[in-house]
């Protein structure tokens, strides 16, 4: 039955294309739209889309971006915040490996922006090992890894590594989505996001920096999006179900932020192709409430890394 439908589809599509190619300008446009409709079907089938759309509707900040903001707050590096790279050997399920691939990716960002160039390569290797074990090593571009290895003596290695981590994160996401490994994408993003928020909350409590508080206050949409993505897999895996339960508890605790926003006219500079967004926003939370969020984060993080 499927074969018949496929043949009919191809014949119908081919006919419409042939007719379109023989027609005038309007027909061509009409034909192009017909092809687009078929491409749309093909695209949707290929991407198996709802999970990806859910996952991508909200941007989940790259660890490097989050860690850059953490660095800008002026907070000192805290080595106790990163997951010990020796723990990697104990992750013997794909569930743990995918989550901790995200965790170590974030830690790598934290080490990099803080100039911890002696520790960073070992975290990169750990991430590569976990990716190998998950059979997603195609997500790691060998040439990127070599660029780091060959540049360790370069005084600009910090910038190079930042660039490499950013590119690796993008290449990894692109690869996993192309291969339809949405389960791995979801868990990896969850691991990275929890680790980012864990570090940012520690810094927020230490510095009360307005940008960090704002960063945390704005995590809720990304968290909700992530919960939707992972919920698709919770029936298949009890661990995912438990993780989703903990993420929902965490999400609810974000109600404690008080957010404000006030619009102002942006300024445009066509010469530099830059628009300055001048609207202002604020986020407030008491130290006690932030500590409660930190408690929820520690609970999820321990579930991930232990």
């Amino acid at each position, binding site marked *: 039955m499927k074969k018949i439908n496929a043949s009919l589809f*191809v*014949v119908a*599509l*081919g006919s419409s*294309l*042939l007719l379109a190619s023989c027609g005038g300008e309007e027909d061509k*446009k009409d034909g*192009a*739209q017909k*092809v*687009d409709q*078929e*491409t*749309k079907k*093909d*695209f949707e089938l*290929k*991407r198996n889309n709802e999970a990806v*759309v859910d996952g*991508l*509707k*909200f*941007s989940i*900040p*790259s*660890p*490097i*971006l989050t860690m*850059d*903001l953490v660095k*800008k707050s002026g907070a000192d590096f805290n080595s106790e915040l990163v997951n010990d790279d020796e723990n990697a050997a104990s992750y013997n399920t794909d569930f743990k490996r995918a989550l901790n691939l995200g965790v170590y990716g974030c830690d790598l960002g934290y080490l990099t922006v803080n100039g911890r160039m002696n520790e960073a390569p070992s975290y990169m290797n750990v991430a590569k090992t976990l990716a190998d074990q998950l059979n997603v090593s195609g997500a790691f571009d060998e040439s990127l890894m070599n660029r780091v290895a060959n540049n360790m003596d370069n005084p600009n290695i910090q910038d190079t590594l*930042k*660039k490499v981590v*950013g*590119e690796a*994160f*993008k290449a*990894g*996401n692109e690869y996993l*989505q*192309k291969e339809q490994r949405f389960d791995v994408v979801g868990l990896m993003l969850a691991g990275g996001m929890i680790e980012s928020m864990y570090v940012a909350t520690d810094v927020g409590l230490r510095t009360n920096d*307005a*940008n960090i508080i*704002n*960063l945390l206050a*704005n995590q809720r*949409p*990304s968290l909700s999006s992530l919960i939707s993505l992972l919920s698709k897999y919770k029936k298949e895996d009890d661990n995912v179900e438990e993780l989703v339960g903990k993420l929902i508890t965490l999400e609810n605790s974000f109600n404690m932020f008080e957010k404000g*926003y006030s*619009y102002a006219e*942006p300024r445009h500079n*066509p010469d*530099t*192709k*830059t*628009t*300055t*967004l001048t*609207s*202002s926003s604020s986020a407030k939370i008491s130290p006690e409430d932030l500590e409660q969020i930190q408690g929820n984060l520690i609970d999820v993080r321990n579930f991930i890394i232990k």
Partner: protein
Amino acid sequence: MLETLLSNRMKKLLLVLVCFVGLGNVSFAQEQCDELPKIAGTYLEENNNGSYYVSDGQVYTAFVDADQPAEFYATFYGGSKYRIAATAGSGGDYVIIELHDSEGNVLYSNEGYENSPYWNFEVESTMDVKIVLKIDSDKKDSDSGCITMLIGFEQ
């Protein structure tokens, strides 16, 4: 008899041709979708005056048509500079990019800037934004197709 045979052969040949052209076009179109991140990547690297933009790690791809533009949500953090780059093919002016705030105010549209395929945003205070992308049918011969967007932040 010979006429019928020829006619049947012609039909078969036409069917094979139709299948071939049809499959070729679908796969070509899909290939075009897959090529878009590479093109968008070049816009992240373009004309940076010494600084560079690192991708936020996600490749935002959607299929759009006239009545269904793509909408993506992001948070822009205060004190950061971002670049949005979008493409729908080889033409640098195929995509209309709009940035809206959480109250629906249009903060920016590239329609006033020759549909520039990328634009930078300097953010004074953290804000949630919605990015709306559609294909400009005056520039591309169709108002539907794949669009890919990248968000970079300045280092």
